[in-house]
């Protein structure tokens, strides 16, 4: 396996993790909304947001809050995307620009999620993650 294929593998894996993280927040939102009022919901979502990883092996001050996992995935996706583009040539076309637009939107939403987990942002983030997978499949070469 060469660098290109390793990059494609990493890109796929990071995409899976990014979608998984978006799904996690959606499931938390749906599950907690069924039982709690908006005020309690906000408290519990914030508690989840402040959970840190990893939970062992690293000093507490160095553990990353959960939203940072999505940032790591986004940075990795950008890097592996660039590496893959270097090999197969720069992408083009309207679907490509749609993907870039969705990535920019995902970044903006992640900025909000890092500060506060807002229900509407959770739903839009999940939708954007799903759309990114669909658009990426459509522009596969």
């Amino acid at each position: 396996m060469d660098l290109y294929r390793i990059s494609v593998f990493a890109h796929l894996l990071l995409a899976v993790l990014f979608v998984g993280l978006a799904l996690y927040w959606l499931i938390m939102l749906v599950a907690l909304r069924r039982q709690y009022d908006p005020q309690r919901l906000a408290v519990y979502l914030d508690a989840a947001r402040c959970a840190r990883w990893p939970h062992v092996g690293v000093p507490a001050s160095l553990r990353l809050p959960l939203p940072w996992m999505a940032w790591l995935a986004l940075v990795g996706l950008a890097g592996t995307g660039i590496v893959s583009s270097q090999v197969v040539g720069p992408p083009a076309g309207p679907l490509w620009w749609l993907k870039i637009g969705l990535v920019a939107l995902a970044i903006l939403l992640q900025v909000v999620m890092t500060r506060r987990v807002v229900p509407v942002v959770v739903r839009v983030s999940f939708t954007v993650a799903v759309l990114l997978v669909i658009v990426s499949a459509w522009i596969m070469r």
Partner: protein
Amino acid sequence: MTLYYLCVALHLLALSLWLGHMFVWSLVVGPAMKRIEPPATADLLREASLFRGGLGWPALAVLVPTGTYLLQHRGISLELLLSGAAFQGPQGLALAIKLLAITGMIGYQALIGHRRAPLAIYFDMLLALIVIGASVVLVRGWV
């Protein structure tokens, strides 16, 4: 061609939701929530995170038919699979590895599923990584 891309999209989406759920819960969210204070909140959030779990069978219900179609699009029919001819050559090896790993994951799904399995889940995740790697080789070749 539209059906092809639709199948690719659905295949990748089902894969992402199922494996994303698996990886994120087992490796990130589950461990992270153990340290939430107070413990009562940690238990509550953990319980909430398990809501609507069990994505394996629904995902497989999408992955199997779309995967079958995508194989046929590459000229790999059911007859070739059953006769073993599909597993000849480097790409055939990648296909064999992928299908073996998928069989392992289906076995895990059938025997353990959404139940707590602290060690077996790591084996399942390893199989998932093999599936992704074999898929890359299937589409992009070995070199």
